[in-house]
């Protein structure tokens, strides 16, 4: 379209006489710019905002933000932090990019297309909230609260999760951080040493650090990494059990290239050997052990020879490692791991780690399993519990007795798909991307497609958001108050201190992004639960929590974002500590009372077991669209043993597809990393790549989505958690 006149000519001659109304009458919006005091160039002052708490990963380091206007320029560790100190990792730094990611969700949107093939239309918050509440209420009225399920993740999901669980009353909540990650560890240790372990090993002061599948350095959690590196600096011996020559294995004194899936056998073999050698901590066991005799008898079959054969590890090395542990006990860090949902036999393996701690007496003393003694007093604010209590499916069925909180994921998916034991017709997804967290993606999609309503709340258009009916844009961790972080100095042997900090916004939220309290409260009001709302706004919630410790947001700001107070010596073993080597309660439920190795399926001919892990510059899928981090590691090379690569005529840098044993082919390709640093029976890649949603313009199609290849489901019988390393792939040249 060409206009054959000049602007000057137009202004000289034009009128809008023929229009139905004057020009000015149809301009209704308030201008986005207004008169303001004159400000000379270059005088926009920089501010340092305190109180930042990172959430690029779950570790949540303490931050300060350098802000100009309402723009965050840079993030740094809070100099007052006794946790991460001034250090933050690559992902922490790249939070600035998350904030201003061009693909970020900005306004509430309605899907006027299909689930999976969305066509988005911006809508008002009122319309979005009305729709969410109306649909959720309709499900509640027709099917009961249990007809609603939720997949939450992250600090912001806690408040809405409590609303749905406590007040509305659905038990059908499944957190990936439990059921596809650490839940097995927590309940296994509860059944062994009476407490979930976290990652509380005093590595900084250890004589030996033992990691089973731990790839420190590739998983970077700052204060945790500091403990690990301090330990190495102090001369700790490092033992890494991993089929792959990981970043930690590269620093190890002993790299145990165990056959995947046989880790429990290795633990049992080493413990049996230690007992046979009389090197176990008899005094500790006498005082704190329960069922040691039964345990000893139960693992007696695990001779060094049998262990070596089962685990494909040299007998001499098993002895060396066991001796190293026993000879340096009790100052030994047996790392409990974190992402432990591996093979569907994981509860037993995690129990064996707890038993090894007990066997060596590696608890409560320097260098062992030690929980810091953090501050007390921080209060809780939550939604009240409703009158109607619905039993979770696994409780009603008497299965998965050691399930973490919530409901095992597959029970929810199966119920939704089959309608049995009851229909599940509305789905709330908050901060989680179940496409990339839960194995067998098709099953997740089938679940979503039969729903009457699906709503997602997120900061980015992740894969799961393609299946939403209503998509709500959330304020990020840099734009809101919420999480209270407490703890102690990172080096447990240092000056004893405690800290209390609360997340505070670095900048105000742009566009129409809202926080979890606003969104949840508005939905609750519309669903008839307005009288149950515990707080009206996030700052109010944080102040109420802090009040219990005599603090407030204002006081924390005056203290540069972190309150410090004298700490308590964390060392010492409580008299009432019990270590359940043999736990009769587990046997009552029909599972082995002593840790027991349960063999996993062998690798089919022509295939490799697919292993996955963390990348130091990504938090699985959550950071894939971050352009800074993408540049640091744009795809996830697949590691393959050099001899196997030769057999397949693959060389470094070749592009390949992966095809699993059920015929599922990866959507994308990646490059091959040929190395002697991995066993011949497996391949490895970093998890979280290969985003499907093209709306993530940086991460989409970059690398291979390993979760898409995990179609064979393994479920841990004691916990109901998934095992995700029981799938097998071929590499096919692209």
């Amino acid at each position, binding site marked *: 379209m060409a206009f054959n006149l000049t602007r000057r000519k137009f202004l000289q001659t034009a009128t*809008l006489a023929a229009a139905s109304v004057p020009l000015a009458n149809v301009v209704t919006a308030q201008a986005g710019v207004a008169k303001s005091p004159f400000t000379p160039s270059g005088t926009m002052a920089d501010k340092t905002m305190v109180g930042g708490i990172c959430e690029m990963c779950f570790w949540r380091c303490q931050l300060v933000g350098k802000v100009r206007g309402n723009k965050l320029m840079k993030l740094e560790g809070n100099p007052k932090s006794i946790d991460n100190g001034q250090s933050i990792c690559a992902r922490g730094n790249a939070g600035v990019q998350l904030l201003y990611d061009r693909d970020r969700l900005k306004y509430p949107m309605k899907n006027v297309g299909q689930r999976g093939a969305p066509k988005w239309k911006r809508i008002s918050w009122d319309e979005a909230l009305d729709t969410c509440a109306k649909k959720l209420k309709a499900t509640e009225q027709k099917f009961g609260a249990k007809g609603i399920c939720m997949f939450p993740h992250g600090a912001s999901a806690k408040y809405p999760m409590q609303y749905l669980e406590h007040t509305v009353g659905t038990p059908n909540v499944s957190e990936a951080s439990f059921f596809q990650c650490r839940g097995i560890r927590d309940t296994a240790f509860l059944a062994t040493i009476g407490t979930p372990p976290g990652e509380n090993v005093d590595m900084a002061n250890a004589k030996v650090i033992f990691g089973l599948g731990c790839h420190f350095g590739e998983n970077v959690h700052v204060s945790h990494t500091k403990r690990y590196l301090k330990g190495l600096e102090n001369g700790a011996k490092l033992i890494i059990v991993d089929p792959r020559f990981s970043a930690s294995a590269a620093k190890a004194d002993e790299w145990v290239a165990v056959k995947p899936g046989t880790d429990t056998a290795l633990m049992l073999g080493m413990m049996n050997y230690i007992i046979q050698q009389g090197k176990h901590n008899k005094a500790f066991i006498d005082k704190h052990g329960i069922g040691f005799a039964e345990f000893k008898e139960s693992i007696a079959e695990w001779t060094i020879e049998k262990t070596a054969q089962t685990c494909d590890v040299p007998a001499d090395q098993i002895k060396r490692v066991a001796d190293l542990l026993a000879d340096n006990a009790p100052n030994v860090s047996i790392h409990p791991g974190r992402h432990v949902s591996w093979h569907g036999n994981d509860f037993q393996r995690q129990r064996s780690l707890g038993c090894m701690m007990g066997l060596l007496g590696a608890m409560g003393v320097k260098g062992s399993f030690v929980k810091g003694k953090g501050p007390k007093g921080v209060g809780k604010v939550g939604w009240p519990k409703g009158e109607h209590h619905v039993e979770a499916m696994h409780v009603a069925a008497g299965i998965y007795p050691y399930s973490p909180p919530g409901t095992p994921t597959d029970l929810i998916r199966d119920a939704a798909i089959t309608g049995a034991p009851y229909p599940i017709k509305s789905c709330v997804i908050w901060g989680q991307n179940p496409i990339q967290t839960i194995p067998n993606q098709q099953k997740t999609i089938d679940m979503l497609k039969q729903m009457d309503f699906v709503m997602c709340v997120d900061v980015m258009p992740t894969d799961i958001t393609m299946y939403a009916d209503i998509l709500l844009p959330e304020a990020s961790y840099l734009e809101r108050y919420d999480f209270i972080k407490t703890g102690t100095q990172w080096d447990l042997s240092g000056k004893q201190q405690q800290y209390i900090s609360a997340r505070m916004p670095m900048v105000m939220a742009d566009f129409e992004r809202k926080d979890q309290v606003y969104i949840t409260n508005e939905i609750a009001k519309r669903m008839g639960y307005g009288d149950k709302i515990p707080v009206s706004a996030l700052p109010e919630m944080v102040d109420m929590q802090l009040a219990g410790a005599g603090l407030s947001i204002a006081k924390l700001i005056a203290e540069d974002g972190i309150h410090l107070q004298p700490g308590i010596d964390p060392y010492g073993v409580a008299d009432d500590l019990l270590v359940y080597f043999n736990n009769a309660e587990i046997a009552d439920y029909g599972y082995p009372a002593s840790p027991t190795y349960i063999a996993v399926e062998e690798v089919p001919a022509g295939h490799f077991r697919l292993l996955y892990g963390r990348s130091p510059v990504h938090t699985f899928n959550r950071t894939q669209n971050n352009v800074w981090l993408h540049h640091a590691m744009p795809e996830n090379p697949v590691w393959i043993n050099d001899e196997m690569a030769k057999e397949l005529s693959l060389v470094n840098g070749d592009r390949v597809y992966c095809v699993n044993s059920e015929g599922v082919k990866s959507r994308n390709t990646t490059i091959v990393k040929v190395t002697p640093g991995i066993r011949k029976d497996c391949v490895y890649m970093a998890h979280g790549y290969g985003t499907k949603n093209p709306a993530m313009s940086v991460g989409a199609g970059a690398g291979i989505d390993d979760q898409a290849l995990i179609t064979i489901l393994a479920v841990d019988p004691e916990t109901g958690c998934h095992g995700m390393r029981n799938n097998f792939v071929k590499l096919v040249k692209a």
Partner: protein
Amino acid sequence: MSATQEPIRLAEIFRFLAQTMRYPESSWFTDDFLSVFKELLVQLGHVPQKSLPAKITDAILEEIQVDYTRLFINGVPHVVAPPYASIYIDGTLNSTTADKTREYFRSHGFDITTNEFPDHLVTELDFIALLEDEKQGSSEEFLRLYFRPWFAQFRDLVLAEAEVSYLKTAVEVIDFFTRIETEADSGQAA
């Protein structure tokens, strides 16, 4: 002379153009608005295309909203034409260009009042309107230094990718009113 017969002020035009690029909602995207838009095209010597709707219905409004969302907010496969200068100048959102733009506003006695970034198309058009309110022609420097360097790329993307005519046409009208006219252009026209 009725109100509508008075000569049009450039500031009013820019304010109207800013409105054309706001998210279309039933509260303002009405038959009256469309009538003014079409008349503006007539005055520009252009017979409005038949593809512009005759009346605004719910279906037409939704069609434009969906296209607007896809083009400018969050789209599949991705946002086609982000309406931010930073994207075209620096390759990222809310970058140095956004800072400089805001600094320009402030150095002329203005500042942003919403959650939008200062280099958003609508914000810049609002600012241009305010400058023109103060003194006709005073927006030329901003147009030359800040607006035109990115707008042409944005315009081309919208013209190539928009599915509804209204948005294409609006962008072309903005293009006309923000072009830097040379002395020669003005002379010819006079």
